[in-house]
């Protein structure tokens, strides 16, 4: 792979030499130094990094909520300057991302209504979305009447109904309990397979990144570059019990963990500025 900053024409989402510097009173803070990666259409990639590695900053730049200082984000070859229509974002704070004054159904429906999608199609999309997250039974409830996990399901349903090409998720399960988290992880895999959507899943949870992703992008500590970009060669059908006990899962998890530890100690990849992609082949695999 060429370590250049030319847009990859096959990529759905392309991040090119992204840099973000915050202007603060005590001087400039460089949150992200130089990030370059591509997501192919229909890929499920996890972005994992030590805390404070600028994951949220990166996601805000990709989603068009924040302008990068340098570099650019391309969606289908077009530069992102504001929130693109083909993108949906699921935030970590489910309690603060749904409208508490609207019922579940209205929350899911609102973005479609705002875009002028006709009523009958809107109904179908909302019904399908609620069905696929397993929430068909609570359309009349308010979000705050539901548990945390269910609220995040509503946020996911809203994203699905919007029919995005790219789904960004910013540590969506960081605030739910472990059992709910496992259910939601499986839900994401199912939704991803069913819709063929491109997913970029940001997390600080190493197990989660390996379990979910087809690919894991490891970030260095701040100022952030890509530490490593690895393919996850686990079977496509994953389940919480068997996949997590595969020797390969343990190996990959071990490897990612090691890289994160290195990143925390300030170790930086040799090709730090080019965002070069390295791949972990199954060299340890039996």
């Amino acid at each position: 792979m060429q370590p250049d900053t030319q847009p990859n024409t096959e990529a759905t989402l392309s991040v090119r030499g992204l840099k973000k510097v915050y202007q603060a009173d005590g001087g400039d803070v460089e949150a992200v130094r130089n990030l370059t990666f591509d997501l192919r259409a229909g890929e499920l990639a996890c972005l994992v990094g030590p805390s404070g590695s600028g994951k949220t900053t990166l996601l805000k730049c990709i989603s068009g909520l924040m302008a990068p200082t340098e570099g650019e984000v391309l969606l289908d070859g077009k530069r992102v300057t504001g929130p693109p229509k083909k993108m949906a974002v699921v935030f970590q704070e489910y309690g603060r991302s749904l409208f508490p004054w609207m019922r579940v159904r209205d929350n899911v429906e609102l973005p479609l209504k705002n875009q002028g999608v006709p009523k009958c199609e809107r109904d179908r999309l909302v019904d399908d979305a609620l069905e696929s997250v397993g929430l068909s039974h609570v359309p009349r409830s308010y979000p705050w009447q539901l548990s945390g996990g269910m609220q995040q399901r509503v946020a996911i349903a809203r994203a699905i109904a919007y029919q995005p090409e790219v789904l960004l998720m910013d540590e969506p399960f960081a605030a739910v309990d472990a059992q709910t988290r496992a259910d939601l992880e499986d839900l994401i895999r199912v939704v991803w397979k069913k819709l063929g959507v491109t997913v970029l899943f940001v997390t600080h949870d190493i197990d989660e990144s390996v379990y979910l992703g087809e690919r894991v992008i490891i970030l260095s500590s701040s100022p952030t570059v890509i530490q490593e970009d690895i393919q996850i060669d686990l079977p496509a059908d994953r389940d919480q019990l068997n996949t997590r006990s595969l020797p390969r899962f343990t190996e990959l998890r071990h490897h990612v963990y090691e890289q994160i530890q290195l990143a925390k100690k300030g170790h930086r990849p040799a090709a730090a500025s080019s965002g070069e992609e390295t791949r972990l082949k199954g060299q340890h695999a039996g």
Partner: protein
Amino acid sequence: MRTARNIGYILGLPVLLVLVWWLSTLGSVNFFVPKPADLVETFGEVWFGDRFFSDVLPSLGRLVVGVAVAILIGVVGGVLIGSVRWLRALLEPTLEFFRAIPPPVLVPVLMLLMGITDSMKVMVIISGCVWPVLLNTIEGVRAVDPVLSDSAHTYGISGWARVRYLVLPSASPQIMAGVRQSLSLGLILMVISEMFASSSGLGFTIVQFQRSFAIPEMWSGIVVLGLLGVAMSFIFQWAERNILRWYHGQKEVENAA
């Protein structure tokens, strides 16, 4: 059973107060303090007749128009000032100045400028009632949750849709708090606007009675004002319960957790 108990709670203290009043004026000959029975009689005579149409209704009309216009100006202005940073920087010091002026001192000024008209009285009410709504709305608009705002933004909800689906509902608890203050201010200003130079209205009538030593009649006017206040409070509470159902529900859940 439960309704009966609630009614008991609502009426308990008023009944007790009337009882105390009745007992303490037994055998009293004080000219300035009427007895309950006399007052009830006077109340009927004075207010259930022509006066209802010549004084009560015009006063109420001015109050309703004044408060409604004040709420409208307050909410529209508040959304604008709260959303546009330079507008806020430009207007806030000046707003503090105007807010500090007690509306009653504007009565003579407005009388000179607008004459002794209905619009002058409505202006007095607006000039006082607009502030709580305006300032609360600004605060409410500014306090829109950033995550919620980002969510709306990523789904392309902007412009008028943003105001309608995000900003107004999100600020509604503060707006309602402002409206509540405005209502009680409005009643006070309604009376004051009619006290200086007027030929009709509740404030005018009460002052007339007082000056002509029609003491029970004067008291009955005060009772009308009190009852108006109670009625407004009930209407407000009903409206608030409906508009802010989600807010109270959410608070309840948060408190239970």
